[in-house]
């Protein structure tokens, strides 16, 4: 199974995102690098709006990811509720 990844800037906006992603994806591995994190995951990685909102305590539009996203790999599937990376078809 191939790995997908999501790289985010590290700042106050992304801390709750990273927390939600790690909680929702037990297979995910966090790599901390200067000014950024890279989250690697076997097969797929999902970012859930509901999990982020639960931590933030406010409504969150998943497209806000655009602001702090550095890079990614895998096929993207984006809906209002989930942003998914995977190599599945």
């Amino acid at each position, binding site marked *: 199974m191939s790995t997908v990844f999501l790289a985010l800037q590290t700042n106050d906006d992304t801390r709750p995102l990273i927390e939600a992603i790690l909680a929702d994806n037990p297979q995910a591995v966090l790599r901390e690098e200067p000014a*950024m994190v890279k989250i690697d995951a076997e097969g797929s990685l999902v970012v859930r709006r509901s999990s982020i909102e639960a931590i933030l305590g406010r409504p969150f539009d998943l497209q806000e990811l655009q602001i702090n996203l550095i*890079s990614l790999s895998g096929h993207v599937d984006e809906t209002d509720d989930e942003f998914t990376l995977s190599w599945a078809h």
Partner: protein
Amino acid sequence: MDMKASKKKLGLKERYAHLTRGLDWETSYQKMDDVFPFDKFEGIKIHDWDKWEDPFRLTMDAYWKYQAEKERKLYAIIDAFQQNNGHLGITDARYVNALKLFITGISPLEYMAHRGFTHVGRHFRGVGPRVACQMQAIDEIRHSQTQIHSMSNYNRHYNGMHDFKNMIEKVWYLSVPRSFFDDAVTAGPFEFMIAIGFSFEYVLTNLLFVPFISGAAFNGDMGATTFGFSAQSDEARHMTLGLECIKFMLEQDPDNLPIVQKWIDKWTWRGVRVLSLVGMMMDYMLPKRVMSWQEAWEIYFEQNGGALFKDLARYGITIPKCVEQVTKDKEHISHQVWSTFYQYGGVAAFHTWMPSDEEMDWLSAKYPNTFDKYYRPRFTYWREQEAQGKRFYNNSLPMLCQTCQIPLVFTEPDDPTKIAYRESDYQGEKYHFCSDGCKEIFDNEPEKYVQAWLPVHQIYQGHCFKPDVDPTAPGFDPLAAVLDWYNLVDGQDNKDFNGSEDQRNFAAWRGMATRND
């Protein structure tokens, strides 16, 4: 950031459909083939443009909103960086030379990418790719602008960044990145998408914008870190566009496979060659190193690119032929390129230097199979020469590769002591190449590459002097005349970092920042 999530009436997918497909129409006064004259000649067969689906589903209204937010963040940081003399917080002034290479060699490419995407954003007959390419065209001009703005603060204080627009058209090593984009924008729209959207964005830009920019953060350069990550946040979208374009072509018609494969092979190799400059920046130009070029290569090309090619195998795509060679080359190229710039530091718009003992030990640890055996002895010799007041500058002009335009400095994949030379004959003339990859690209399209503007040939033909220069005058110094034409000041913008004005100024200013004398 404080943005209110709006109450949605339509879902993301419906909004995307209305704001892309819903805005397109079939022309009736003019034939579609006349309106879109360029999207068939390359031989790519498309039967249903509606099968194109941009995975990001970003619509123009959301695009403006998020890009504006990125810009506000970036410019607030640039202000703070300038107001607080942020340039004095970098590790040491050698670091600025990586930025010089960036502003002269990379930022102009962003502008060319803007032009390229504006062109293909007009010429695809499907509305999905047109909208996505338009957004990318705006991103690309934003990247060139934000890079110029971020680095203008350095330009006030350091040499060599004063005339990048002129230099990209003239300076010998800048013809390497420039020819890459010239090659891409003069191809058809589908090949351009493979060249830039796929090979450059998906397979290769991670290596520039992720580990190198993370390295900028490590070296205290808040300005570059911010423009780099701000640009790379757009790249995530660009990567998915490149990947979508590949999948779309391969799914539309089986006849597209051999054409796409040839482009993937060509542009992967073209990109690998250009990135050898980034390899040198990471291993030699960041005083505080974050990871070696080889490590970055393994993460972002071998693991990430490998996963991608494994995925594309179901369409019949095979891993580019060059991968076998680049796997061997990754232990060598950064050292070979730095050796070249060290020797030719007299005609470069940035300073070069020999690594310190501590830096050589780091290189030995990162390159256990190659550094001590092939490169440390050479560097030690050059350091001895410099200590004796005989800093080595190579004043001869090297043979250039007709395709990638890099001097023939790379070695045979299986013999690091032997320079690789390849050649082809075409219409009675001999053409020279650095590698099998570059020779093959030429052999597939010789009529294109014979037109290359090769800096060394141009110098020999007398095209690289100012108009009033007389090369027959007694005591004529061709190298000085070329530097003058480049708009480089000898002894100020070029040569060794040791003894440079940059080195003296940085030491003096940093002293002033911490003392009251």
